[in-house]
């Protein structure tokens, strides 16, 4: 890998948010393609961050700083993307279900998805089923991501999926679910299209849903 791409990657893994913007600005002046910068720099870095988090080497504070660092870098690259490369990979609607206020994990997933080139619309926390359905109708996202951290709010995910069905929208949007108490078996049981254990998996899922 090119040395300057490697430096960007390391800068994100280490959360060196003060230097990332100038590093990315510099690399954009070179012959290295923006796609390489994003894929092998920004996204590859967050993959490593996700692995380190999974292995218990780093924790949420470090992950948040890495995600923030990646986003700062991305903000420099984004305006330079033109034509097909600049077009969003797809739209993802993300929210934490009714009765649940946990949003740290959801916010990290959002940053990752944005990093991967998705347009993400954040519905926030404690969202009513009706609101989700209305937004799906209005925005027509390819992917809907639902987060729940409480056992008691997990059934809300099922309700959302049922309501989408009742409105004839179920096959228009892929639903992915996540959050600490959720697992693949639960996702399958409630008829979701996928389950992601962490932000990296969320990104991989979203990409597979839009055929990337």
């Amino acid at each position, binding site marked *: 890998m090119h040395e300057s791409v490697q430096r960007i990657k390391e800068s994100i893994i280490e959360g060196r948010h003060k230097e990332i913007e100038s590093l990315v600005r510099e690399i954009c002046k070179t012959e290295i393609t923006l796609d390489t910068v994003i894929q092998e720099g920004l996204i590859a870095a967050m993959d490593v961050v996700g692995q380190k988090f999974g292995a*218990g080497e780093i924790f949420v504070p470090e992950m*948040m700083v890495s995600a*923030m660092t990646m986003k700062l870098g991305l903000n420099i690259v984004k305006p330079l993307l033109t034509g097909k490369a600049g077009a969003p990979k797809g739209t993802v609607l993300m929210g934490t279900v009714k009765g649940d206020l946990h949003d740290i994990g959801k916010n990290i997933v959002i940053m990752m998805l944005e990093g991967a080139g998705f347009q993400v619309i954040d519905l926030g926390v404690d969202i009513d089923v009706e609101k989700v359905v209305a937004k799906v109708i209005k925005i027509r996202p390819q992917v809907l991501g639902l987060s729940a951290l409480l056992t008691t709010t997990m059934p809300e995910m099922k309700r959302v999926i049922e309501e989408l069905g009742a409105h004839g929208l179920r096959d228009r949007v892929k639903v992915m679910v996540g959050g600490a108490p959720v697992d693949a078996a639960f996702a399958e049981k409630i008829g979701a299209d996928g389950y992601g254990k962490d932000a990296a998996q969320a990104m991989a899922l979203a990409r597979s849903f839009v055929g990337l």
Partner: protein
Amino acid sequence: MKATSYNLFMSALYGGRKGIRPPAGNPTSIACVELMKACGAFFPEAHLNARAMADLALAGHKLAGFDTVMPEYSVHQESAALGCEMDWGNETRMPDAKTAPHLDFSDVIVPESILEKPSLRVVLDALSILRREVGGQVAIIGKVMGPWTLAYHMAGTQNFLLQLGLGEKDKINRMLRQLMPVTIAFANAQFRAGADAVVLADHATGNLVGPYHYRDYLLPIHQEITARVGGPMILHVCGNCLDRLELFAESGVDAYHFEWQVDAKAAVEKIGDRISLIGNLNNPKTLFQGTPEDVYKQARYAIEAGVDIIGPECAVPLTTPLANLRAISAAVLDGY
């Protein structure tokens, strides 16, 4: 030793002589809708009215068979006194702070009369009621939030964690130091009001922050708190804390209240000879969704592993079946 609830609990708390059976204890809330209905003390009154608070705590002993009474159900009594706007919730919803008054990490100025703020006074009064009614028979547990948890409430959890990640050491330490006196004053007041032991709940939670955060920021503060508080303290930190158990054992507390994610045998092996252990029934899967038999089995596993005091891992979901809580006391009644 007489096999009273009080004796069994206190002896186990200090790792002392074993009675005829292990005690069942709840450092965190076992309030659930069925208990509320049975004793007529409901949320949100039970957070705000000393009599209702004490009645619900007593129900945990009388109706669920625990050897302790613990009257503080929410994590927000102190933050309400420190200026968070509160939604006190209802029977099926725990209280929640609506605002974080120090998002900017501005100085927290602790009111001199903080112990007289209604949300703290109520806990002290409830402890005194319990002392009058069951003192010496049942162990009375008080609870305070540590500076780390209070900082989540003051600065917002996510914001606090971000500043931590950014390495803003001075900011973080200043806020923790400004909040520490609240923890100390409230704990000492709880002992004076009638508590036999006080829980120090401080959410340097496993999976959320690292053992190095605990060691660098919080351990010295916990050592200072335990040195300046009169009676025995029980540390409560959620999550998988296997990676920091040894640090907890150095904090000066007498016991650690731990979660299911940490295997009981592993916990006993690591620090069981240094401090007592309380726990660690799984809340979401076993207590909330499981059967009394599932609960009984897990409780027996903990007893056999050598856990000193048996109880849920954390505040139980509010719709937990009472029969499942009773299965914990049934398991301790069967002895060692």
